[in-house]
C-alpha cells in the first residue's frame, strides 16, 4: 500500500475541486492533492463544448473546455498535485482516505478533506415510465459525452424528456449533427432550463416544446420505436384522451441532477433532503469536522461562475480550518438552524455556528412575480429584500449580517417569501 500525507485532499477534479484547491493553496495550505477517477481534469466541462461559461466571473464567454483549461493551468502553476485515474473508495472521521488506481491501493492522511464529487443524472427509474425496455434510451449527459468526446451518434430520430439545460443543449447538438429532433416534453408549465437555452436551442430551430406534457408509454421490441406523450393537469396527472404518439429511435432523459454523495454518506455526513447535498455551516463544513463541500455535490448550481465563486470560499475555509483554527473559534453555543419557510425550497448553509456576515444561497419553490424575501430570527426581522420576480431556475444569493445579539438570543433563522 502506498501511503502519503497531505494538508488538503480534494475529491473530484472538476471546476469545483480545482477552484477549491487553488484557493486553499492561496490561503497557505502546503500540500494540496486533487484526486479524480477520470483520466482528465475538468470534470464534465470538456463535454460541454457550447459557450456561456465565465460571463459573470471572468467577463468573457467561454466554452466548457476553455473554462476548464484556464483553471487546470492555474492549478498546475501553483504546484497543486494531481492524481487522475484514481478512484476514492472511502474515507473516515480521522480523515484517512482509501483510493485505488493502476499502481494499487493508496492511503492518504489529510488535515482536511474537500468533497467536490459533482452530481449524476436521474434515470428512467426516477420517472417510472411504463412500457418495454428497448435500447435507445439515454440520459442527456451521457449522450453529450458520446457525441462530444467519443464521436458516437446515439440515434437519428430523437425525443427529449425534460427541459433542463442539458436536454435543451443536446436538442441543438443533435440537430447540428443531422438528427431529427421531434420535440422536448416537459411536465411543468414552464421550461426548467435557462431562458437563453430555450431561445437558442429550441426556438431557433423550430423544435417543439410540449409544456404540461409527459411521456406515459415507451414502446419498441429491441430498439425504441415510439413514445406516447400525454398532457398533464395541475396535479401532474395525465389527462385521458390527450395521448399522442411520436415515432422515434432514441429517447433522451434530462430529468435533473442529483448531487453525488454516496462516499460522504458512508461515513455519516448528514444530507439535506432538499438540496441532496451535505448539511453545511456558514464555513461550508459538513457535519463531520474537517470535511468540507463545494460544487454540484453541495447543491446543483445554475452556472459554473457561481459554483467557482463558492468553491473558492470552501478552499479558503478548509485551509483556515487547520492553519488558524483558534482564530476562527467555535462558539460555546451550538448554533442556529436555518429553515426554508413559505415559498422557499432550500437554503444553504443549513446551520450557522457563529455571528457575522453570512452568505446564503437559496431557491424558491415556484415562479412568482414581485415578492419580498424575509430573513427572520424568531419575531425579529434580520433582512428584507424586494425581488422583482423569482424562479426556481435561478438561484438567489444574499448576504446578511447576523449580529452577536441575534445569534445568542435565537435558535433558528427562517427565510420566507411574502407576496406584496
Amino acid at each position, binding site marked *: 500500500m502506498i501511503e502519503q500525507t497531505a494538508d488538503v485532499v480534494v475529491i473530484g477534479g472538476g471546476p469545483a475541486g480545482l477552484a477549491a484547491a487553488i484557493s486553499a493553496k492561496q490561503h497557505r495550505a502546503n500540500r494540496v492533492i486533487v484526486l479524480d477517477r477520470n*483520466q*482528465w481534469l475538468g470534470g464534465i466541462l*470538456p463535454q460541454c*463544448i*457550447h*459557450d*456561456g461559461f465565465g*460571463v*459573470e466571473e471572468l467577463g468573457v*464567454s*467561454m*466554452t466548457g*473546455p*476553455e473554462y476548464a*483549461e484556464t483553471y487546470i493551468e492555474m492549478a498546475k502553476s501553483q504546484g497543486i498535485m494531481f492524481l487522475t485515474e484514481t478512484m476514492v473508495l472511502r474515507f473516515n472521521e480521522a480523515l484517512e482516505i482509501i483510493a485505488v488506481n493502476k499502481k494499487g491501493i493508496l492511503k492518504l492522511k489529510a488535515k482536511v478533506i474537500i468533497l467536490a464529487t459533482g452530481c449524476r443524472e436521474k434515470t428512467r427509474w426516477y420517472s417510472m415510465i411504463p412500457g418495454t425496455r428497448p435500447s435507445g434510451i439515454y440520459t442527456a449527459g451521457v449522450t453529450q459525452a458520446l*457525441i*462530444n*468526446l*467519443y*464521436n458516437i451518434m446515439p440515434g437519428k430520430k430523437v425525443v427529449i424528456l425534460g427541459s433542463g439545460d442539458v436536454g435543451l443543449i443536446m436538442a441543438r447538438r443533435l440537430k*447540428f449533427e443531422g438528427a431529427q429532433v421531434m420535440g422536448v416534453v416537459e411536465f411543468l408549465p414552464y421550461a426548467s432550463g*435557462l*431562458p*437563453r437555452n*430555450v*431561445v*437558442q436551442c429550441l426556438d*431557433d430551430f423550430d423544435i417543439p416544446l410540449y409544456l404540461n406534457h409527459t411521456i406515459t408509454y415507451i414502446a419498441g421490441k429491441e430498439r425504441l420505436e415510439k413514445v406516447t406523450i400525454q398532457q398533464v393537469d395541475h396535479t401532474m396527472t395525465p389527462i385521458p384522451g390527450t395521448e399522442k404518439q411520436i415515432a422515434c429511435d432514441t429517447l433522451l432523459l434530462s430529468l435533473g441532477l442529483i448531487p453525488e454523495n454516496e462516499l460522504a454518506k458512508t461515513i455519516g455526513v448528514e444530507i439535506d433532503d432538499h438540496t441532496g447535498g451535505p448539511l453545511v455551516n456558514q464555513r461550508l463544513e459538513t457535519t463531520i469536522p474537517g470535511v468540507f463541500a463545494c460544487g454540484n455535490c453541495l447543491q446543483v448550481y*445554475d*452556472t459554473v461562475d457561481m459554483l467557482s465563486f463558492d468553491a473558492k470560499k470552501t478552499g479558503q475555509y478548509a485551509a483556515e480550518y487547520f492553519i488558524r483554527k483558534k482564530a476562527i473559534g467555535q462558539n460555546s453555543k451550538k448554533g442556529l438552524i436555518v429553515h426554508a419557510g413559505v415559498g422557499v425550497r432550500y437554503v444553504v448553509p443549513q446551520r450557522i455556528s457563529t455571528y457575522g456576515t453570512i452568505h446564503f444561497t437559496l431557491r424558491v419553490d415556484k415562479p412568482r412575480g414581485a415578492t419580498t424575501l424575509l430573513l427572520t430570527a424568531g419575531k425579529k426581522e434580520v433582512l428584507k429584500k424586494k425581488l422583482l420576480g423569482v424562479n426556481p431556475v*435561478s438561484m438567489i444569493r444574499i448576504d446578511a449580517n447576523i449580529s452577536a445579539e441575534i445569534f445568542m438570543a435565537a435558535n433558528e433563522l427562517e427565510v420566507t417569501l411574502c407576496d406584496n
Partner: protein
Amino acid sequence: MTIEKEITCIICPIGCKIIIKKEGERLNILKGNKCKKGIEYARNEIFDPRRMLTSLIRVEGGEWPLVSVKSTDPVPKDKIFTILKEIHNTTIKAPIKSQQVILKNVANTGINIITTRTVHLLKNNNFFYKR
C-alpha cells in the same frame, strides 16, 4: 409600422426579457435589459440575428477522436448549417493547441473557426477511447 416585442437576451445565463419598439428603421429599447450588452443584442436580433457556433472537428492521431471548436464571433443565423458542413468536412492532425485557427473566413463571413481545447498526440496507453 410599429412593432412592440419581447426579446430574451442570450448573452449570459440571466436571460433578461427586453422590450423593444420598432418604428420603421428606428429601434427603441424600452426596458428589461440589466446591462449594456442587452441593448446591442436586441438591436442585432432585429436587424442581423447572429449566434455563436460551437461544434467539433475530427482529429487523426490524437488522444481524443475530436477537438471542440467555436466561431471567433457570432455568425449569421442563416449561415449556421453551411458553416457546419465545412466543419464536418474537415479533419486535422494531432497535436492540437487551444485557440488554433482551423477554418479561415468560413462561408465568406470574415469569421474564423478556432479550437477550444488541447488534444495531445496519441501515445501508447494514452487513449481516452476505444478504437
